[in-house]
């Protein structure tokens, strides 16, 4: 279970508070969605869960299976099952996608005490996952995300997720910039990974993704806090009313 308790986060080298007391729990086996207007702190929450530098936690805690996630280095978190699908995946010139996948795969397997796969076994794994995500073989030989379209980058994030077998998946706007066909493919990839051993946190600005990845709960985030929590129908409500209500309140509290 992921437990976020009263998390308050500011920028490390600026006096700017971004998360102002976020609390939520995602039990294993569940998918929770976080929705909210731009600038409400969704990506910051995702980054803090993954361990990005540049933020300072001034209060609260994050437990993953009872362990203090915030005390761990990013690669340790990955070994413990944390995976963040980036809103803006990074380009790594000079590192072939397959090499990158292989290096990451071996690293987490080693740390988890699992055996590494032989090259043919590994390639078979990756190719199967890639095929179901509609990723061409040729792309795997190219440097990570370099020259990829927006859609290809997002698919690649899901491919990495599938290969690394995380138990806590955080998806940051995986649907943004995708056409509806790509949203379907990506959602199918995510849905395939739903299991009783996995917790998922799906961050999105739009409701449409949640037609395909049906969440157990929906949280609305605005002004750095969770403003409302409900079932999947909350997403549909928001689709009609928009975030106006939360935006004004966010301003008041600011």
């Amino acid at each position: 279970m992921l437990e976020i308790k009263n998390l308050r986060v500011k920028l490390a080298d600026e006096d700017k508070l971004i998360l102002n007391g976020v609390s939520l729990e995602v039990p294993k086996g569940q998918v929770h969605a976080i929705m909210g207007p731009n600038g409400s702190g969704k990506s910051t929450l995702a980054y803090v869960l993954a361990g990005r530098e540049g933020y300072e936690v001034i209060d609260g805690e994050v437990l993953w299976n009872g362990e203090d996630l915030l005390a761990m280095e990013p690669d340790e978190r990955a070994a413990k099952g944390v995976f963040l699908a980036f809103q803006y995946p990074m380009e790594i010139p000079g590192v072939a996608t397959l090499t990158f996948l292989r290096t990451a795969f071996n690293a987490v397997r080693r740390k988890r005490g699992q055996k590494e796969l032989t090259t043919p076994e590994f390639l078979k794994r990756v190719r199967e996952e890639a095929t179901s995500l509609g990723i061409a073989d040729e792309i795997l030989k190219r440097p990570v995300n370099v020259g990829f379209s927006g859609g290809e980058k997002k698919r690649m994030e899901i491919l990495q997720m599938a290969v690394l077998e995380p138990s806590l998946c955080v998806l940051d706007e995986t649907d943004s910039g995708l056409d509806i066909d790509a949203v379907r493919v990506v959602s199918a990839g995510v849905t395939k990974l739903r299991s009783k051993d996995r917790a998922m946190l799906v961050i999105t600005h739009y409701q449409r993704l949640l037609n395909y990845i049906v969440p157990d709960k929906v949280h609305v985030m605005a002004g750095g806090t969770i403003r409302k929590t409900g079932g999947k129908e909350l997403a549909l409500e928001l689709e009609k009313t928009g975030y106006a209500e939360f935006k004004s309140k966010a301003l008041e509290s600011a």
Partner: protein
Amino acid sequence: MTVALTRTKVEQALSHDFEAVAAKLPGGRAVTEARKAAIGTFAALGLPHRRIEQWKWTDLRSALKEPLSPAVGGAAKTSAPDIDAALEDLAALDAYRMVFVDGQHVPELSTVAAAKGLEIASLAAALAKSGDHAGDGLIAASAIGQEAVIALNTAFMTDGAVIRIGKAVRLDKPLLLVFARTATEGRLVTTRNILELGDGAHATVIEAHVALRGAAPGQANTLSDVSVGDGAHLTHTKCTVAGEAASHLATWLATLGKAATYHAFQLTASTGLARNNLFVTFKGEGAKLDISGAFLGRGAEHIDTTLVVDHAVPGCESRELFKGVLADKAHGVFQGKVIVRPDAQKSDGKQMAQVLMLSQDAEFDSKPELEIHADDVVCGHGSTAAEIDEDLLFYMRSRGIPTAEARALLIESFIVEAIDKVGDERVRAALAGIATRRLATLSASQP
């Protein structure tokens, strides 16, 4: 106005040592005269120092403090396995081999085959045969400018490779020239190579400047005088891993004929002080130059690449890409000058130098220069110095890759773009192996 300069200990020793060894240096009367003239030039110039523009970041006068005695004859006994160990990944290369130990050709360690249209000799032998005539371009390089380092090379050169490849002859295997330094007490080793490709000839030549295990500190002054004939194709690679206690002064002088291709690459790593001087002149239209390099510095290593590309005739293309990784207090220097002469219309020159700084204490000085006297040309240059991208590092770590491994991968991915420029696939793989081994220690160094 002449300024009376006080000569440093090293400068005095060089002039003095020349008198002592001159009689033992190979060559007939004409060569001896050229050597004397050269040491005279050197005596007037002294070692290059920071007040000379092209040497402002590599002050040999203050860097070379201890006089070293010139190596003349009597190479220490060396075994093939010792050479192979020093060559690292290059040892396995299927190539003809010519080995020089402390500046002396060692035929027993060399495997050069004779072929039709191919003339391969040691410079010492060629000079000895030259008699009263300098002839055959053996000392033509001494004519180049007022360069103290070149003058010293002319004065002291003991040996090297003389390779003449006839018209339309293709060398069936790469030719590996090995310059090894041994444990013999600190030496000044001076070598010169002549590489001549006739019209339409093809060859791959690799120079490996290495130190044998336990080699004493020393200095190498090496010069390669290269001419690539019309339509000829030369892939010329230099791998310098001379040792932390070594200085390496290298000069390449190349002229390219009509529609010639010169594909050059230099890897410099694990070398205390390196100055790589490259002068390339286009002599015929439609020639192509691709000259690249990678340099890896750590500790207090100093690696300088200074090149001058002279578009003396129209319609030629030059490409330069140099990439460096600097750790600890390493100092990298890149000076690249592209000259386009008034008649050299349709010249196309691009130059780039990029450095990855792994430490706050590392230093990189760069001076790309364009000197363009024609109007219808495409020329560009650039230079960057960057640190490891923290965002990329985080992205990789978030996938479970430990910091050290992620850094190593990012450093390797940075340098691979340059290594990929090595003209021959097998040589490229060998150089990648040699570089990767160094990168492991570089990436482990403290930021």
